[in-house]
């Protein structure tokens, strides 16, 4: 305190106790990030300027159309036109419930919401390792499929709802969740089967995988919806949604099997031999040693297949089930709202983007979490 001669006026420090100064303004924080990433080379500078120019051209027009000039509340399209020159979101607002639940009876929709909330709980519990009370959630996850089936379909005290009343986002989520959760285990079995030493199992798996992969999904759905009635005995009423779920699951499983086979082939033979040397039986070796590694490697491919399956669910319109896209198309035929296809497609695109982006991010998180440092 007494010796002020070495420090500038107004700052009193003991020698050696001078606090760390923040790094210079240009060497940290957003400024550095921008300099490093956007303006690091002449080519980068040109690209950045072009990109900013493009955004400048696009964003104001789009924002005006989508937000400031848009109409959110109106009874029909003509009213929309009177109220604003931009997007007519009133269409989506008016039909929000149709987009969400399809033709599910209004009085019973709480069941769908409840199922969805429970589904979220289960998903969070399954995917997030540090979730509070995870043990209970996992136990609950075992009974959830039956509970969900009962809630959505009805029966046993609840009013029955037939599957042809399903539609909209609800339908997409059902197809997506069922397809995803079943295609992974089936895919693993097929992948292991394909590498089996037992010829019958091996060729059955190869035949199945190659057949399914050789046929477009749309054809399978079409067969499921109309051709099956010719093969089944007359009078059999085989639920249409169930047929779709089976077809979508089988389709995704075949792809999944090949993705996982890729992972299995990346495991060195020494690992299996080591397992044999430890005296592990086939299933134990697979469960404890091979699959954990193979699945980890395959995560990007697996999630790829999941996302593909999720988006393929829009094909169900061909067999008369109305997913959000189908609801949108049917709604556009209502004279009150004709010609608003941009709004519908944008809305549906946002929904799919959110779901698929979430899946993609989770897969990245999982890769980082499981990274054992063997890679580089």
């Amino acid at each position: 305190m007494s010796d002020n001669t070495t420090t500038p006026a107004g700052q009193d420090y003991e020698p050696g106790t001078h606090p760390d100064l923040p790094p210079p303004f240009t060497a940290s924080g957003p400024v550095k990030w921008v300099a490093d990433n956007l303006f690091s080379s002449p080519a980068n500078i040109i690209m950045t300027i072009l990109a900013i120019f493009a955004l400048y051209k696009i964003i104001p027009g789009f924002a005006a159309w989508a937000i400031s000039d848009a109409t959110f509340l109106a009874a029909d399209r003509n009213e929309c036109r009177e109220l604003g020159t931009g997007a007519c979101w009133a269409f989506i607002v008016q039909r929000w419930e149709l987009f969400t639940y399809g033709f599910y009876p209004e009085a019973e929709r709480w069941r769908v919401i409840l199922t969805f909330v429970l589904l979220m709980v289960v998903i969070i519990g399954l995917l997030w390792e540090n979730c509070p009370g995870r043990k209970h959630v996992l136990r609950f996850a075992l009974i959830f499929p039956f509970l969900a089936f009962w809630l959505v379909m009805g029966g046993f005290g609840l009013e029955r709802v037939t599957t042809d009343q399903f539609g909209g986002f609800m339908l997409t989520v059902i197809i997506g969740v069922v397809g995803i959760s079943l295609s992974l285990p089936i895919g693993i079995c097929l992948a292991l089967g394909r590498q089996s030493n037992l010829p019958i199992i091996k060729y059955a798996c190869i035949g199945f995988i190659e057949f399914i992969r050789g046929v477009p999904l749309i054809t399978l759905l079409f067969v499921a919806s109309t051709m099956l009635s010719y093969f089944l005995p007359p009078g059999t009423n085989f639920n249409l949604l169930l047929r779709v779920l089976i077809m979508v699951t089988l389709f995704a499983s075949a792809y999944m099997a090949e993705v996982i086979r890729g992972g299995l082939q990346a495991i060195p033979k020494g690992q299996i031999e080591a397992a044999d040397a430890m005296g592990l039986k086939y299933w134990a070796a697979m469960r404890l040693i091979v699959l954990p590694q193979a699945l980890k490697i395959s995560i990007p491919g697996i999630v790829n297949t999941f996302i593909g399956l999720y988006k393929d669910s829009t094909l169900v319109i061909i067999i008369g089930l109305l997913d959000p896209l189908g609801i949108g198309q049917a709604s556009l035929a209502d004279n009150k709202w004709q010609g608003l296809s941009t709004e519908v497609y944008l809305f549906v695109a946002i929904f799919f983007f959110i779901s698929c982006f979430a899946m993609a991010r989770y897969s990245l998180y999982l890769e980082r979490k499981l990274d054992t440092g063997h890679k580089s």
Partner: protein
Amino acid sequence: MRSIKYAAAVAALSATALSAQAATLDDVKARGELNCVVSTGVAGFAFPDDSGKWSGFDVDFCRAVAAAVVGDGQKVKFVPTTGKTRFTVLNSGEGDILFRNTTETMSRDADLKLSFLPVNYYDGQGFMVPTALGVTSAKDLDGASVCIQTGTTTELNLADFFRINNISYEPVPVETNAEAQTNYLGGRCDVYTTDASGLASTRSTFENPDEHAILPEIISKEPLGGAVRHGDDQWFDIGKWVVNALIAAEELGITQANAAEMAKEAGDNPSVNRLLGSEGEFGSMIGLDGQWALRAIEAVGNYGEIFDRNIGPDTAIALQRGLNAQWSDGGILYAAPIR
């Protein structure tokens, strides 16, 4: 898409195998619900309204059949189909009856094995162009790009028309009316062609309808009607006479409002009495009770009421009756007598 055509062909072929074991009426009664094949969305004819309830011209005919057969116009399960899948769905038994603004043609009847019910809407194919193009006749359309819905008779008519007049065109295939509209307004095709009713309804929703003109040429006959599978004549009769009953009801002045009143006791007009069941045993001839037509009319009204409610001059689609007026009013609607 080829696979679908193939599947449709196989479906049509194997339909013969199905037809032997028909008795659709019993199936519908046992189910308590009519499976009606409709479109995935055609303005005025079939679409879900804001609350998710199906409505439209075709939908009302479905409801009328349901009312006649199972006693309640709401007991219908709608099976939405595209132009390509509609017949396969009907032939495979997923649907009991089809009302999907479908043109009756010989090949559909004989080759696809459908029985067409009486025509419920006489339509014809037209062209719509932006007035800025300065085209006044379809014959001036040489080299134009044309938006056309695939899997429809309009596609074939278009090819015929351009071949006959020896002019060229470039087809822009689209799947649905909504898609066609977007393409047309976006300038990806110069001309949109479909049934004149569809053109009118599409044009009515444009921001500036005056900038688009419907050309005077009507290049085809499009008798639209319902259809059932071959091989179940009783079920065909039910569909046929429900449609006839709705047309006859308009001619006889029976409306949704006064039907119950007129049915109470036999009146002076024997035609009305026969239709509403107070005279004769006409219902039992088609396997139904005497009040079949009364229920159909009470559910949706007579033909004129259905027309006015869904596509008539007071709706946004604003179609005139034209050919679809009763024969006594200068149209060609002519219901066979119920006797």
